[in-house]
């Protein structure tokens, strides 16, 4: 990557934004290392949020899963799991931080608008205008088994409900103190709001769906979109162009939405050190048992009796269905992926585990020195490929330390990262227009 002359790029003054995603459930978070802290202790949350705030991050994010993940009818036991209710935990962090945004992933399927709008308002007021809501949907009856209504919602209706839910929430946020009447296909609600608008008007709306419906939903409704398109420059730019086209179609200005792909960032003092650390991270993430589990999802077979250090299974995969694994990604085209895995394993002499380490779920993210990463990210943001990253630390609670201590100063030297918070609200941190 060469240094870009700022004058030659579309957005010479663009600024990079960071969020941190405290994941809480998945194989990405290393738990086997002695430096790996508790996933539930309030101290872990305080430490990550305060480190991010020291690094002038825009936001701290929490995810949501309303049922423990299962594979073949049994609780998935290989990954970190067990986390607090997001809005509740963020309300505690509102007391322990001053500036950083606090974003809750919360579902529109198993909540109701008057209640959830009020909970989000409460977080927004307790944090003086720093709340965000990552709007997600759930459609499966499996998750519904924990809730009064069960699996009532058709897959096709999930974004319809989400949009009607969001419209209802906005009416409630704007309604105080007068009664609000909501009539839509999904909702018949009469409520007197409990709370006024916060300093930022409404909580900032985030959206993460990557399907065409999800992207259109974001283009119509969201302030920020997450994506998985943040590693390869061309892929990121294509995604950003697609979103800008959808924004135009929705009648919104192109700069009305921030694009913050999820990312992993591994930093070393030299390129070789960074590569070595990235390899360590990947091997810690893909334990022998996790390698067998991920391959098992691809083959749709129980491979737990296989040798992770032996060859790939000779078996043919079982046809994919949607009944066995919940809360874990199934592979769309298993046959061709398995063919690619076999070819790569043969060519490189990889074991099963080595194959998963190199080719398994999710790319390895960004690896480099503070200087090389700062140059690369400046190139991304100045060319309009994204507005920043939602960083998933691979270790809790110290996984952000290198980013804050080493990468942020390198970005600041290049003029693409703030040197102090200039606003107080999440909306201001993101540079979004005030909410009318």
């Amino acid at each position, binding site marked *: 990557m060469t240094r870009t002359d700022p004058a030659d790029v579309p957005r010479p003054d663009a600024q990079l934004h960071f969020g941190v995603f405290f994941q809480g459930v998945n194989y990405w978070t290393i738990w*086997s290392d002695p430096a790996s802290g508790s996933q539930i202790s309030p101290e872990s949350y305080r430490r990550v949020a305060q480190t991010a705030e020291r690094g002038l991050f825009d936001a701290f994010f929490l995810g949501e899963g309303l049922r423990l993940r299962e594979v073949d009818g049994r609780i998935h036991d290989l990954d970190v799991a*067990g986390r607090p209710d997001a809005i509740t935990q963020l309300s505690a962090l509102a007391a322990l931080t001053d500036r950083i945004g606090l974003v809750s992933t919360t579902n529109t399927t198993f909540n109701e608008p008057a209640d959830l709008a009020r909970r989000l308002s409460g977080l927004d007021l307790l944090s003086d205008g720093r709340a965000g809501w990552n709007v997600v949907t759930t459609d499966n009856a499996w998750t519904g088994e924990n809730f009064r209504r069960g699996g009532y919602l058709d897959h096709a209706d999930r974004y319809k409900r989400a949009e009607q839910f969001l419209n209802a929430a906005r009416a409630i946020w704007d309604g105080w103190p007068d009664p609000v009447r909501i009539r839509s296909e999904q909702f018949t609600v009469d409520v007197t709001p409990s709370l006024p608008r916060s300093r930022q008007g409404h909580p900032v709306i985030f959206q993460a769906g990557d399907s065409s419906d999800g992207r259109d939903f974001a283009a119509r409704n969201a302030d920020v979109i997450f994506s998985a398109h943040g590693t390869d420059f061309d892929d990121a730019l294509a995604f950003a162009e697609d979103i800008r086209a959808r924004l135009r179609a929705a009648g919104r200005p192109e700069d009305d939405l921030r694009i913050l792909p999820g990312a992993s960032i591994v930093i070393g003092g030299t390129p070789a050190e960074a590569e070595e650390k990235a390899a360590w991270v990947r091997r810690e993430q893909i334990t022998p048992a996790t390698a067998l589990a991920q391959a098992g999802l691809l083959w749709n077979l129980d491979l737990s009796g296989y040798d992770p250090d032996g060859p790939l299974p000779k078996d043919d995969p079982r046809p994919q269905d949607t009944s066995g694994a919940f809360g874990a990604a199934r592979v769309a085209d298993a046959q061709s992926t398995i063919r690619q895995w076999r070819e790569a394993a043969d060519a490189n002499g990889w074991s099963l585990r080595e194959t998963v380490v190199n080719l398994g779920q999710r790319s390895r993210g960004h690896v480099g020195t503070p200087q090389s990463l700062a140059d690369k990210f400046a190139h991304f943001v100045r060319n309009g490929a994204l507005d920043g990253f939602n960083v998933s630390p691979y270790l809790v609670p110290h996984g952000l330390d290198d980013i804050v201590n080493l990468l942020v100063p390198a970005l600041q030297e290049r003029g693409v990262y703030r040197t102090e918070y200039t606003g107080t609200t999440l909306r201001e941190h993101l540079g979004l227009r005030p909410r009318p």
Partner: protein
Amino acid sequence: MSLVLAVEIDGEGAHPAAWRRAAHPPSEPLGPRRVRHVAEIAERAGFTLVTLDDDLLPPGGGGAVGRIGAVERAAFIAASTSVLSVAPVVSTTYTEPFHVSSQLASVDHIAAGRAGWVVAASPRPEVAAAWGRPAADPGQEALDSVRVVRALWDSWEDDAVIRDVATGRYLDRDRLHYIDYTAAGYTVKGPAIVPRSPQGQLVVLAPHGLVPDAEVDIALVGGADLDAVHRAAAATTTPRTFAEIEVALDTAAADGADRVAELDEHAPWAGGGRLRYTGSPQGLVALLADLDAGGGVDGVRLHPLVLDEDLAVLSQFVVPALINSRLAGRPVPGVSLRQTLGLPRPQNRYALPGEPA
């Protein structure tokens, strides 16, 4: 014997027109400074527990009186204090028991074992309309909700996170349990998504009679006079019983009775069948001594007429006098609410006998 001291700190005070005497701008209750300020006063005074009233709809009482959700306030207070315990009111009539369980367990994690739950119901039809649901039977819903929530709190055994590097397992799935609860109108599968909290089970408080005593740690009882309170307390079979007392105290500026009369001109103070005390701080100390001497009551929950006035008098005069005369104890740092109450940490219903709870 001595009494455990709790105080209800929602809004501006127990009187529906209390906001007229508030000593701060009207917008302040709906922000962090006020919430933190009131909790700090209660903690410094020596109260063991604060409760936070709540429901989906605003409290009413004239004027645009707002209210931040009690769970959100409780989490904020838990992170802002170190010895004070906090118990949000959470209604059971239309809420999702699965969410209620997660939210309350999270408060207990944040509070390091200083959390409770005041079980409540929402009988008003307006609440059903706000949820967008047909009116439900509050008693049935309360019973099912408490049972579901408590079962979910046990659905992770304490040592379910094993971090076993040799086998690559983070969880021991044998120590996670489906609750498979069948309620009157729904079922809940489990397990919880939140690990078992520091107290195992939060301290459950409820107005006596709302749910069966077996589901409750602290029954809240009222009564028009001390005799009635003692009779109500004698009828409970819960491990602990607290008396509910509304207080309107004499301040430097005005007598309690005059302050009540002034506020009553704007809105009547119906109260909730609780004992009511109006008068000097010394008189309240004497009343509480009599209450304690009569036996059967383990603590009190005070409902101050106006927080900005009566909580100040309570913290300057009443609580210090109670603690000095050993009529009440001050909570100890690093101790859970259960320990302060002398309640054991509950065995996990799903753990096999002989195993750790």
